[in-house]
């Protein structure tokens, strides 16, 4: 095309520069839209990576059995699925006895209650588990001992406490042998867990572990929250899973009324949830980008109106309609892409800044988000430039020249 792209581009650029303030205001919407897409998607992506990292800490040989059956693929969370049949202590016991590929099994009961010692109270999460829990979840008592090993002792009123609980209730003193009321029932502290921090949503330092039967009676729970197990080796994880499934089905009259989860399952399930979260955040931010597009259209329409005479003149000087169209389209696209570039700078800069101010915040600038937010902003400029550009190109040169 004669008088092609580069001329139209330089004309568009001259116009944008000539009306600097208005162009900046128009671009501001695009800038904020692109920046928020990048920031929100980065947050969502960061959250996903964070969760994935946490699940990875679970270990590649761990299996979790929860009551109730649901698919582990798809969007729903199997962990909250309703259960008709309970998992029992007997189930857990049989799992440990009849599954050769399984190394350790611990039933888990979860309760929330007030623990009390030496006149101090603290609301904590209490887990009812067994001796093998330390094997499965890789926790140790680095002071005193862990919970009793023998099945006959699963109902003893003893407790292993987290570091934080020790600090808050016993002021950091040796708590071994001291009384600890768990939801009103007296237990005796036999051990303190080594510092571990958060794992899978539990702050292990702020946790109290008691034998599983004791927890069932304290919290009046018949079934189990879950059963955790570990395979002898990561390679035997599938085998261990099959053995557990067969064992439990036999015990439940052939019904698969439980769900078996491993690290991969949870990764993909939570990954899917967090992916949709990321998409939702990105989409909300994209709406603001769309709104910015209407701003671009509005300004371009005003610009066409103001420059009617100029358009008529350009036509009189030999500009074809397609050349006028291209000029205004490029002007809108330039507003979009300049705004987009500034938005990328602001978004990435904001993410880096946030990371500096809050180092703990999971934040990962996703290159695909940067690329798509920028392309989207250019596209917004182009799409919303079409109507004004067409209007400009369809002006009657005579009427346009006479326009006041």
């Amino acid at each position, binding site marked *: 095309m*004669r008088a092609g792209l580069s001329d139209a581009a330089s004309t568009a650029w001259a116009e944008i520069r*000539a009306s600097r303030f208005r162009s900046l205001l128009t671009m501001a919407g695009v800038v904020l839209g692109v920046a928020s897409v990048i920031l929100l998607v980065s947050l969502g992506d960061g959250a996903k990576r964070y969760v994935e990292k946490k699940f990875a800490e679970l270990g590649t040989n761990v299996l979790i059995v929860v009551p109730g059956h649901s698919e582990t693929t798809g969007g729903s969370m199997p962990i909250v699925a309703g259960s008709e049949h309970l998992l029992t202590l007997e189930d857990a016991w049989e799992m440990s006895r009849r599954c050769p590929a399984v190394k350790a099994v611990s039933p888990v009961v979860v309760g929330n209650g007030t623990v009390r010692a030496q006149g101090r109270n603290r609301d904590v999460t209490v887990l009812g588990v067994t001796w093998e829990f330390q094997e499965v979840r890789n926790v140790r008592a680095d002071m005193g001992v862990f919970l009793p090993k023998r099945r006959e002792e699963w109902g003893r009123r003893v407790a292993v406490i987290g570091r934080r609980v020790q600090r808050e209730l016993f002021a950091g003193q040796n708590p071994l042998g001291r009384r600890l009321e768990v939801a009103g029932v007296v237990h005796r502290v036999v051990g303190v867990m080594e510092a571990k921090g958060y794992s899978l949503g539990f702050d292990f330092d702020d946790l109290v572990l008691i034998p599983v039967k004791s927890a069932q009676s304290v919290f009046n729970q018949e079934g189990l929250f879950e059963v955790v197990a570990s395979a002898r080796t990561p390679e035997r994880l599938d085998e261990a899973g099959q053995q557990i499934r067969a064992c439990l089905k036999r015990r439940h009259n052939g019904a698969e009324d439980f769900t078996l989860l491993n690290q991969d399952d949870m990764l993909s399930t939570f990954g899917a949830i967090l992916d949709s979260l990321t998409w939702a955040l990105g989409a909300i931010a994209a709406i603001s980008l769309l709104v910015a597009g209407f701003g671009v259209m509005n300004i371009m329409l005003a610009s066409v109106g103001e420059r009617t005479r100029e358009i008529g003149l350009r036509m*009189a*000087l*030999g500009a*074809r309609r397609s050349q006028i169209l291209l000029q205004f389209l490029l002007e809108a696209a330039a507003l979009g892409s300049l705004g987009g570039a500034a938005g990328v700078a602001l978004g990435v800069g904001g993410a880096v800044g946030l990371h500096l101010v809050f180092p703990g915040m999971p934040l990962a600038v996703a290159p695909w988000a940067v690329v798509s937010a920028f392309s989207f902003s250019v596209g917004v400029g182009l799409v919303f430039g079409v109507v004004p550009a067409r209007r400009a190109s369809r002006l009657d040169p005579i009427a346009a*020249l006479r326009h006041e």
Partner: protein
Amino acid sequence: MTAVIDAKGLAKTYDLGGEKVEALKAADLLVQPGEYAAIMGPSGSGKSTLMNLLGCLDTPTAGTYRLDGQDVSGLSDDGLAEIRSRKVGFVFQTFNLLPRFTALANVELPLVYAGVAPKDRRSRAEEALARVGLGDRMGHRPSELSGGQRQRVAVARALVNRPTLLLADEPTGNLDSKVGDEILTLFESLNAQGVTLLVITHDAKVAARAPRKLEILDGRIVSDRA
């Protein structure tokens, strides 16, 4: 020799909400290369319509129009744009310069649409500005120029593409008489160099400067005097 303007029975009828308005009624006009003609008439006489048709901004509803030998009566929008780009130079009463561009950039504008390579545009625009006596004002914006200088820039812009026909619509209408005189003197010198000129005006004094004078009234050319 090919006539610059060869119009026969040129007519333009507007449809204004069902009412037909005959702005131009069967005008015949022949203009040879190198002529300098003025078309005079009061407002509403049809002279603007005639200028729009002759300048290929509009197409007639009847009649034929050959510009430089080429029949342009039935051309498409793009075809008309092409003809305007190559064969017609416009000078307007209100100058119509782009305020944000320098004199040089304003004069380069027709070359952009004619597809002249960027490196050739500058020298041709400079040449055209020198021709109208503004060789020392090329970097100025319209707001930094006087009315007469602005109209000279507009004349340079009209000339830069070496058009077959230079069409001026009330070129002195926004200028005081002394400056208007200077523009008309410029026209005379351009005509002496061979530029074919058609000036549309309602001002008898402006028309008197042209060797050939036509009068238009109620959409008809009523007199044609040399």
